[in-house]
């Protein structure tokens, strides 16, 4: 998970670090431009985004978590949208 988060920062061209959170088992600390965000594992599954003690994101899974992080940290990053065409491949 830490590799996915740090790789996402690189993909969005955001300079920052990702470390395991000593205070929250299974959680991570993102440090970007002097600001820290905590990614907290939520039972039974999912993730919270916490900044300055306040929760500002609740996600059932990684896709939503990544989307909000990108919107917060790299609002100008190019965004794609999956399109499934009508044509059969075979």
């Amino acid at each position, binding site marked *: *998970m830490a*590799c*996915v988060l740090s*790789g*996402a920062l*690189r*993909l*969005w061209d955001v300079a920052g670090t990702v470390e395991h959170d000593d205070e929250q088992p299974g959680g991570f600390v993102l440090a970007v431009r002097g600001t820290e965000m905590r990614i907290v594992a939520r039972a*039974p*599954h999912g993730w919270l985004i916490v900044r300055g003690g306040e929760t500002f994101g609740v996600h*059932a*899974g*990684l*896709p939503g978590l*990544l*989307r909000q992080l*990108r919107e917060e940290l790299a609002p100008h*990053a*190019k*965004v*794609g*949208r*999956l*399109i*499934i*065409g*009508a*044509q*059969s*491949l*075979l």
Partner: protein
Amino acid sequence: MTALPVSVITGFLGSGKTTLLSRLLRDPAFERTAVIINEFGAVGLDHLLVESSDEQILTLEGGCVCCTVRGDLVRTAGDLLARRASGSIPPFERIVIETTGLADPAPIVHALMTDRDIADALRLESVIATVDAVTGAGTLDAHPESVKQAALADRIIITKTDLADPAANGLAERLQALNPAAPKLTAVHGAVDATRLFQGAYDPARYNPALYESPAHRHCGINTFCLRRERPLHAATLSLFLQVAAEHCGAKLLRLKGLVDVVESPGRPAVIHGVQHVFHPPAWLDAWPDEERSTRIVVISQGLDAQWLQDLLEVLDDEVKACSIS
């Protein structure tokens, strides 16, 4: 209604697209082919160089098919289909689109795959890129368009091999690094084994991971790699993986093709195939096409991190598994 195969011939300026097309149309096996030629400039000339019946050659002039005349391409293809249905032109069995030398083939493929007016009637068969054996290496250095054309191709035709040896001048090696899975054919004056050009976009041999094991597969900012997984993936994981990749990787994801072992479909792998963020609906094979029984996803990208995509796949599958248990 059976979907008609449509192929796209791309390649940089002067690389031999028109010569190849002209030669192909003289082959009796391809005489029932309709051709759409895109010419850049106010007055088109290329169509005059292609020998075939005029009524089955349509030109798109005044712009490049990948940008300004994309709508025209869709309308022209629709017009061809309508004329075929009405019997006003002979019943062609295939459409070939020749792009301008400066075209990015991706938007063309997107239009063919997604436009609701033509997508049901047409089936993308193959993207063919011509590369000039004499000037190809320099063109790859100087023109990013040519790199993308070769990287996206299902087949690469090295032309003018009577004038230069692509093995001796390094071109063959560079193309192999750029697009390891695309068969490389050679053509002199457009003469090529036409049956090898139009064999469909799905070719099981392209999913051989050994093709992607060399660390040298990075070229002009484009890297090619193969994600692998021994254990089957949940169908939901596959869907989420494609969504996340399309959303965050955007245009850096040039092409993705894969054979996927899906938990819910034992013994019947899924074939996935996309150009940038646009994918065919997954297709299901009746059996594995070779001895290997594991997921292989081939990615051609502009600098994406292979390990990131591999980790993403694993974390998403862990999440899906956790959701299904809880």
